[in-house]
Structures are given as C-alpha cells and as structure tokens.
C-alpha cells in the first residue's frame, strides 16, 4: 500500500515539524518567559531548582547550544516528560493533561462524528429536493457556520439552561467527588454533556450540509445516475448510488476540517466551564503556565494528526481508484 505508507510518512514529518515549532516558539518570542512565569507564581516558594527547570524548558540561562537543547527536548517528549505545570502545584504536565483529555475526547469526538453523519444526510436530502423549501435551510446554516462556536454556546446557555432550565449551565458533572461508575454518575455526566455537544453539532453540521449538497448536485447530473433512474430503480437505491459517490470529497475534506472543528469545540468548552483541554488551555494562558500550554498544543496537534490519518485510511478504503494508482 504505497498510498498509505506515503500518508503515514507525511504525518510523521508533520508531527516532527509540530514538535519543532513547539520547541522554537518560546525561544524566538521577545521577552523572557521564565520571568513571566515566576511573576505569576507570587505566593508560592520559588526554589532554585524550579527556576532551573523553567530555564531549561524555555532555553534561557543555559550554556547548552540550540542543537543540544533540541535533542534534550525530544528526549523529554519521548519519555512522556512535558515539564511541570506551575498553575497546578508543580504537578507534571502529563498528569494534568491526562485528567482533562477524556472529557475533550468524549465530548468533541462524539459531537464531531454525530455532526458529520447528520450533516451529510441532510446535505443529500437538500440536494435531492433542490428547489423545494429545503433550500431555505442554506442561509440558516450559513449563519450558524459564520457565527463563532462560543457565541452559539452563549445563546444555548442563556436560552436552555438559564431561561428554560432544561440543562445544567456549566461543568461536566454535578457531584463534587467521584462516586464510581454507577448509573447516577453516568446519567449526570450525559446530562451535562448534552448541551455543549448539541452546540458543537449545530455549529459544525452546517459545513457538511453545504459541502455534501454541492457535490451531490454535481453527481446527480452524472450519466450513471440518470441510467439508474431510467431503468426504474427505486428512488432510495438511486439516492444511495449517487450519495455513495458524492461522499468522497466530504471524507477527504474531513481531515482538513477536523482541526477547525476541534478549535471551535475547545472554545465551547470554555463557555460551559467543561473541564477539558480547552478550558485547561485558557487557564494556562491566564496564569502564564507556558509548559502546560506547550504540552496541550502538542497533544491536540498529535490528536488531530491521528484523526487525519484515520480519515485518510477511510478514504483509501472507500475509493478503490486511490488504491489502484499506487
């Protein structure tokens, strides 16, 4: 499978580049990040070793050359050591991220899959009924697409949580401590996840609807669809044949859109005070916790790259032409 190995090589290269960017940003930016971090740590005792650790992290006050620092940076990452988080009592960045990651994966992952499926289906429908009232759906979806995710989150909280009281307005669960995986806990978590997930679905489905509609309309003009119709196949079969072909650009677009959707979803988390990576990232920015910030950037980037790779696999699986070219 030459196609697949080429894609894997590309993503590995991109991952290396992402780590390199992560390494260089604190070193090329003006100002001294160590001082900024320490200025934000007033009230805690800053030991010499803390300062030293920070200096090593950001590459100031060290005699080691840039190349040596770079190798060191890689060695740390490969050992799963992303430094210490100053805003979380000097806990390791890895453990802080591990606490937030499941929430983001659960919320953003589920919402993205649902919105892709729903959006594609709606796109097929809108294309099929071209010229009917369903066309009025397009300007509406355009609005949702153009509105920032977090603004929709504001509206959702105001309407459904505050005014109507159907959903809890913030956080991921009601209890303060973890009661174990019983039904009360799970239903509580689902209850809290529903509104943010709905916001992400509504905000991101618009892109899939429009994309699928446009390809579907073009596909419907193909000869094989006309033939399928002409020989009297049931309408559902004809739609299925057309949609199967029209979905390919949507799948290849999926890998490009994931980064965008994830970015929007991170902002949604912030509005809902949902304890995922987006919320963590905001608090890291607010408290100049650069090590945590870099760590989250790395984790999100790697996750997006992995999702991209998965989407590419699906594409190769769906489209035999790609396989034959290899």
């Amino acid at each position: 499978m030459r196609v697949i190995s080429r894609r894997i090589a590309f993503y590995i290269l991109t991952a290396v580049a992402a780590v390199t960017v992560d390494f260089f940003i604190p070193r090329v930016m003006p100002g001294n990040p160590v001082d900024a971090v320490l200025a934000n740590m007033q009230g805690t005792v800053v030991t010499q070793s803390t300062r030293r650790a920070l200096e090593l992290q950001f590459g100031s006050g060290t005699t080691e050359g840039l190349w040596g620092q770079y190798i060191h940076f890689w060695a740390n990452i490969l050992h799963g050591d992303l430094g210490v988080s100053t805003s979380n009592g000097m806990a390791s960045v890895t453990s802080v991220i591990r606490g937030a990651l499941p929430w983001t994966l659960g919320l953003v992952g589920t919402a993205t899959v649902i919105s892709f499926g729903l959006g594609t289906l709606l796109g097929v429908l809108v294309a099929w009924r071209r010229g009917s009232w369903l066309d009025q759906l397009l300007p509406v979806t355009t609005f949702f697409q153009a509105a920032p995710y977090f603004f929709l989150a504001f509206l959702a909280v105001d309407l459904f949580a505050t005014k109507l009281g159907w959903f809890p307005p913030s956080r991921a669960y009601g209890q303060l401590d973890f009661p174990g995986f019983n039904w009360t806990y799970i239903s509580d978590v689902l209850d809290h996840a529903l509104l943010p997930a709905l916001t992400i679905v509504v905000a991101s489905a618009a892109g899939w609807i429009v994309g699928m509609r446009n390809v579907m309309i073009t596909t419907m003009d193909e000869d094989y669809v006309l033939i399928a119709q002409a020989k009297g196949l049931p309408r559902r079969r004809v739609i299925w044949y057309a949609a199967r072909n029209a979905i390919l650009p949507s799948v290849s677009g999926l890998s490009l859109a994931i980064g965008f959707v994830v970015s929007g979803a991170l902002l949604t988390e912030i509005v809902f005070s949902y304890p995922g990576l987006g919320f963590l990232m905001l608090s890291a920015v607010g408290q100049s916790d650069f090590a945590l910030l870099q760590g989250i950037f790395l984790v999100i980037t790697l996750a997006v790259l992995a999702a991209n790779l998965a989407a590419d696999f699906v594409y190769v699986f769906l489209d035999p032409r790609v396989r034959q070219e290899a």
Partner: protein
Amino acid sequence: MAIGITEDRGGTPVTDPALAVAATAARRGRGMRLPRSAKVLTGLGMLLFFLVLAIVGPSLAPDNPAASAVTNVALPQPPSAAHWLGTTQQQQDVLSQLLTGGRSTILVAFVAGLVATAISIGVGVTAGYTGGRTDDLLSMLANFFLVMPALPLLIVIFGFLPRSGGSNDLLIGLIIAITGWAWGARVLRVQTLSLRNRDYVESARLIGERGWRIIGFEILPNLIPIIASSFLFTVLYGVGTYTALAFLALVNPNHWSWGGMLFYAQVSNAEVSGYWWWFIPPGLAVALMGTSLALLNFGIDEFINPRLRAAGLSRRRAKKAGQAVPPRRFVLGVTPVLRPSGPARVRSLP
C-alpha cells in the same frame, strides 16, 4: 423541456454581424459580473454596511467605550433610552463598545485576508506553474499548515507574545494570516495545474512569452474568481479567529473589539445571569459579518459552477417575471436553464 431551453443563447442564431458583436459584448459583460441573486445582493449590502461601520463607527459612538456611567446600580442594566443596548457590569455603554469594536475586528480580518491571499497566490501559482521539486516542497508546506490545528498554534504564539503586541491590529492580522493561507494556495495550485496545459498557454509559450508574463497575463486573470473566493474565505476566517483570540483575552481586551466584549461578558457570567443585551450584539455582529462574506462566496461558487445556480429563481418570482415556471422538483440528470441569457435580451433590441 418546457423550462426555457429554447430561450438559451443557442436557441436563435444571430445573423446580423453587428448584433453578433453586441451579443459577444453583452456576454462578456455578463461574464465578469456575479450572478445577481438575492444572496449576492444581500451579502454585498451587508458587507458594505460593515465597512462603513468600521470607518465611521468609532466617531458615532455616544460614549467612551471604557467610561463607566456614574450611577448607583451595580448590575448590568437592560436597554433603555439612555443606553440603547444597555450597560455592562462596569456601567459602560454596550452600543459604544459595539460601534468602537467594529473597526479593529474588520481591520484585522481584512489585513489577514489580504496578506494570506498574497501568500497563497505566491505559493499556489508558483507550485502549480513550475511543478517538479518546487511543487513538491511548496505543496508539502501548504499541507503542513492545513493539518495543523490553527487555534491552538495561535494560542501558543499569542501566549508567549508580550502583552504590548496584543493591541497592534496589523501585527495580529499578520500572525493570523500565517495560519490561514494554505487552503487558498492548495485550490490555486490545482487550478493553475489545469490551466498550465491549456492550448492558449501553450501557444503563449511557443511565441516566446516570458514566464512572469504568462503567469501575469494568461493565467492570473483566469484565477480571479478563485482568488476572490479564497480572499473572502480568509477574511471570514480572520473575523472568527480574531474574535476567538480576543475572547480568550490573548489580545488586549481593552483594545476594543467584538471578541473583547464577549470576553468581558463571559468573565461576568453574562450568559448564566441572562444579561443577553451584553453578549448578543457583538456575537450577532460577528455572525452577520461572517454571513455576508459567506453569501458572497456562494455567489462566486455559483459563478464558477452554474449547476449550483439552478435553484436561484423561485416559482413566485418566475411567475411575476412572466417566465416559465420551474418545476417543483428537478429531473435527474438535467440542469434546467432558468434564465434567459445574453442573446435573448439582445433579441428584444431594435
């Protein structure tokens, strides 16, 4: 086929040479114009409104956006005669903040759009025209920027940027552009690739035209719709991204922008407390600005791919115009022609 195919330009042969010239001229004139659908007109109108707002908005603002009105209330006040859009927690006038904030938001978005489009033309057209090793390298670069999640990258960049950098609109636009050019470059590269081997480019090359001349006079003019579309797309991206960055307070929120207003609203829990007048105006402004750009983009899409246009004429309008009424549902495999085009109009001339 009673849907007006006979009225198409192929229907009546134009015999008079003068008329033929007029027809070509009319067709060319039409060619450069966007389809005048309701979508495009609405989008254009809204965009103009926002541009005017960016220019005159700050001087229209009734109050200083940062000034607190002297009152004895401690809560945000709903809209009233004194404050048309209510006040914030600090008793600042929301309307003034909205009018002032538009300039920075729109300026950043357009700077980002211009810079990113320039980069994408440079990279995309070069890659598509030269091919070979250069193409591989530039495509790789574009793909790298495409798959990198932009917002986390921007958050890291702005997180390390000293606070003073956070209120320079040009700098912010420039940094956003770095993450926003790749999509346009990719589309332009593909289109350049297909144009490169057309006969007219081939003949220009045979005549001995130089590379820059072929790119500038033969290829670029044919890329204009795509360039325009990618520009609008990037401006849209710029509006959203700048608003997100300001919402995260990564740029100085006192440098008034719509995202900055949302930041203050979020900090004061406006959405949980039901202070809708505080967060709806800036959010709606961003959404409408984005909608106007997206509507214009639809117009360009329909211009590039006329099949998407078929739904443009509603039954009611068609009836009023005395044209054939489009069927409720289109037949498969046939894109009906819903409007008479150039020569049909020429025919009615004396």
